[in-house]
């Protein structure tokens, strides 16, 4: 039996890089760290994964962007972010003041018209490697809020994206998988083949809520990503499945609200976890984990 309490407080490694503990904050749920410092001592975290970063600034989706669902929530932020240069110039310097491992979550963009995702990822990796020292790159191939082809399910494409980012990165590369797939282990093997240093999962499930008064979808973008406790059983299952096919470090994400939930991910085979929706629900509690 694993000593779960001990694992919670032990350093965690990806390749040769050591993170002080396995408790990270998930991308999109902690911004770039600024506002969350009122509640959490960033120094204590194992890592902070900043908001999805794209090559160019993005203004994101129309509102409403969030809504509650049973034991969960939907979001369709649409990766509102100042672009990689904005992140490097305005955001990372702030985080550097804290001694928290910084992981940049990067997204390539596909729209209905054009897909620059592959070259986006390459450039993003290069720009980051050449301009700033960070502790990890998380490849977000799984954002449900950016219109376009479902590339997260194309194994050859996935493998290639990972290879391109890996080739151009100095920091460890983590690939974040989408749960909107029939074959999570296939995806895991593809990104391992591509050379990822670790796998994180899951991103949000694609969902929708309709307002029966207007008979229209609540979210401005109609569909959004389902997160929170509701999805934990799916996340646990996927981590468990991926653990069967790889020895790479796995970072479990999805519906963690309390310590017991983290332990459930450890039991499923995760080496570390990321806290997402919990940051909105009971942020104080995180301080009791360290």
């Amino acid at each position, binding site marked *: 039996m694993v000593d779960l309490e001990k694992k919670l407080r032990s350093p965690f490694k990806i390749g040769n890089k050591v993170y002080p503990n396995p408790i990270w904050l998930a991308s999109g749920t902690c*911004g770039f760290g*600024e506002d969350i410092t*009122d*509640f959490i001592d960033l120094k204590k975290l194992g890592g902070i994964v900043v908001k999805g970063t794209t090559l160019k600034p993005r203004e994101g989706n129309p*509102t*409403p*962007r969030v809504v509650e669902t049973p*034991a969960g929530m939907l979001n369709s932020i649409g990766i509102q972010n100042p672009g990689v240069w904005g992140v490097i110039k305005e955001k990372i310097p702030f985080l550097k003041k804290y001694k928290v491992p910084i992981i940049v979550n990067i997204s390539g963009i596909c729209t209905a018209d054009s897909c620059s995702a592959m070259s986006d990822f390459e450039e993003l990796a290069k720009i980051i490697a050449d301009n700033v020292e960070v502790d990890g790159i998380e490849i977000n191939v799984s954002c449900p809020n950016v219109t376009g082809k479902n590339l997260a399910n194309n194994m050859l494409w996935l493998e290639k994206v990972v290879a391109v980012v890996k080739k151009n990165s100095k920091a460890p590369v983590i690939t974040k998988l989408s749960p909107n797939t029939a074959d999570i282990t296939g995806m895991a093997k593809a990104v391992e083949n591509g050379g990822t240093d670790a796998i994180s999962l899951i991103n949000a499930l694609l969902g929708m809520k309709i307002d029966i008064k207007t008979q229209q979808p609540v979210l401005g973008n109609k569909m959004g990503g389902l997160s929170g406790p509701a999805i934990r059983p799916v996340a646990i299952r996927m981590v468990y499945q991926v653990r069967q096919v790889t020895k790479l470090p796995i970072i479990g994400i999805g519906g963690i609200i309390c310590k017991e939930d983290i332990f459930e991910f450890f039991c499923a085979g995760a080496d570390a976890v990321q806290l997402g929706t919990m940051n909105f629900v009971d942020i104080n509690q995180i301080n009791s984990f360290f």
Partner: protein
Amino acid sequence: MSKPIQAKYKVLENVRIAEGYYKITLEAPYIVRNYLPTQFVNIKVGTGYEYLLRKPFSIYEAMDHTISIVYRVIGKGTRRLAEYQKGEFLDIVAPVGKGVQVKNIKAKKMAFIAGGCGIASLKELAGHVAKKFDLFYGVESRNQIVELEKWRKLANKIFVATDDGSEGYKGFVTDLFKEKVLQYDAVYCCGPKVMMRKIYELFPQNSYFIFEEYMACGIGVCMGCVIKTKEGYKRICKDGPLFKGEEIVW
């Protein structure tokens, strides 16, 4: 500046004050010491997962060691909130929002314009600029009017409009205001978006609006609660909820 904290606050009273409207009073010295007018609180109702996200409510009044919130029951979260009893505790993140430095308000003759539940978001600010404003207050029906006697002490004049004509003018509060636009040097408004837009059109210059939007984090990290401004999307929970009308892309 006031740092928001997550803490548990004791319910001192929770009473119905009008049809569908309740007022809950909490022992909350930290919030009283640290809030600014137009700031709000983010309340977790119930335990566990049933009401996952916090619900935002304006600080209606703050005094001594207590704050109160006036809320309208419109869905399951507010329905649950109305069940809270004296002595129970609520988990709250507060104070949140940018808040207003009252000393910067130079206007002498203001209009405060509230639509329905918006009255709850204007009260605290009104207390700080007593007798410098008139109140325009629109509701569906007279039995939904909230604590008008208190406003009589704060406002110079009060103009009420009801949809059904059961009190004051029968019709939109915007119509009442339209005729008096020239009398004011500033406007503070909270209500349905269509109403606020109308007010902005009538009074584009020195007008301020309190916006609402679905929120997830309430502390500025998720980009969930944004509003389109001329400088791009801004966060209502962190950069607002009060915005100058001219900033907004209406």
